[in-house]
């Protein structure tokens, strides 16, 4: 396979379904550059009107937490129940709290 015949790089696609919602990951596609990636994403992921805005990110540019470290990485968040409203006792009858 020649240099030019190598595949187009992979892009991750994020779509905002409607105003007021965050962009969420929709899938991936191949494109030679960002401009075509955006157009391909528009045609592929919003052909039924599923979105009002699109982000494309080179898949190679995504840094992810390692699954092997997932326990140490996320455990500190799991043992702090005081961050959640259900941690607190509220006397019966108290409303709008």
């Amino acid at each position, binding site marked *: 396979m020649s240099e*030019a015949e190598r595949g*187009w790089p992979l892009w991750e696609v994020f779509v905002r379904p409607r105003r007021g919602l965050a962009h969420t990951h929709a899938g991936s*596609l*191949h*494109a*030679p550059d960002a*401009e*075509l990636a955006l*157009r*391909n994403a528009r*045609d*592929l992921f919003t*052909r039924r009107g599923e979105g009002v805005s699109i982000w494309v990110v080179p898949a190679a540019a995504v840094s992810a937490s390692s699954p092997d470290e997932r326990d140490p990485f996320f455990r500190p968040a799991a043992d702090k129940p005081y961050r959640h409203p259900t941690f607190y006792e509220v006397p019966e009858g108290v409303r709008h709290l």
Partner: protein
Amino acid sequence: MSAPEHAPGGAPWATAALALGDDALILSHRLAEWAGNAPVLEEEVALANLALDLLGQARALLSLVGDEDALAFTRGPEAFTHVRLVELPRGDFAHTVVRQLCVATWQELLYERLATGASPLAPIAAAALPETAYHRDHAVTWTLRLGDGTAESHARTRAAAEALWPYTGELFDPVEGLDEVDLGALERRWRARVSDVLTRATVPVPGGARLPGSGRAGEHTPHLAALLDEMQSLHRAHPAASW
């Protein structure tokens, strides 16, 4: 030319609706021929979108004139009034892209003008405008990449531009019902826009005269008869049927 017999009461805008409807119908057909043949899978989806947009425009325009299926499937070649540019075989991807550049740029300029008019074409043109703008954008994106890509893609794009150019003059032929449009001004703006894209794509703007004859007068290449033979074959084989 037998087109006017379909026009209700011979309203001038009906002639225009038929001509523009035929443009969209035949170009959509050529684009749909790419299904399963596109150069990359992502482009399968894109080309089908273009074909669907144009087919939708064709149906709206033809329905102004009469029954869309009777118009599409029972007329002979001489009754079609689209420009010959859209009936030429799809050729390679460069031919398709350059043709899209020429037609979409023209449609966008024309629809912009028609959308502000008072004829029954106005709402259809207004609805089609965003589609047409996207078609132009798609064509520009690809013209730049093919023209300024590799030596092979450059040569193919240049060959496509030269082959198609003599047919582009028909886009500016007068059509009954389009009297409100200053075709001379439209042509100048079209030429400026298309030339700009070709130049940015490093493709020389072709010179040379237009071919004699015009699809607007029902004059067509043999490619149309072949296209219609295929497109109308099933419909014609069952004259009494509905589908």
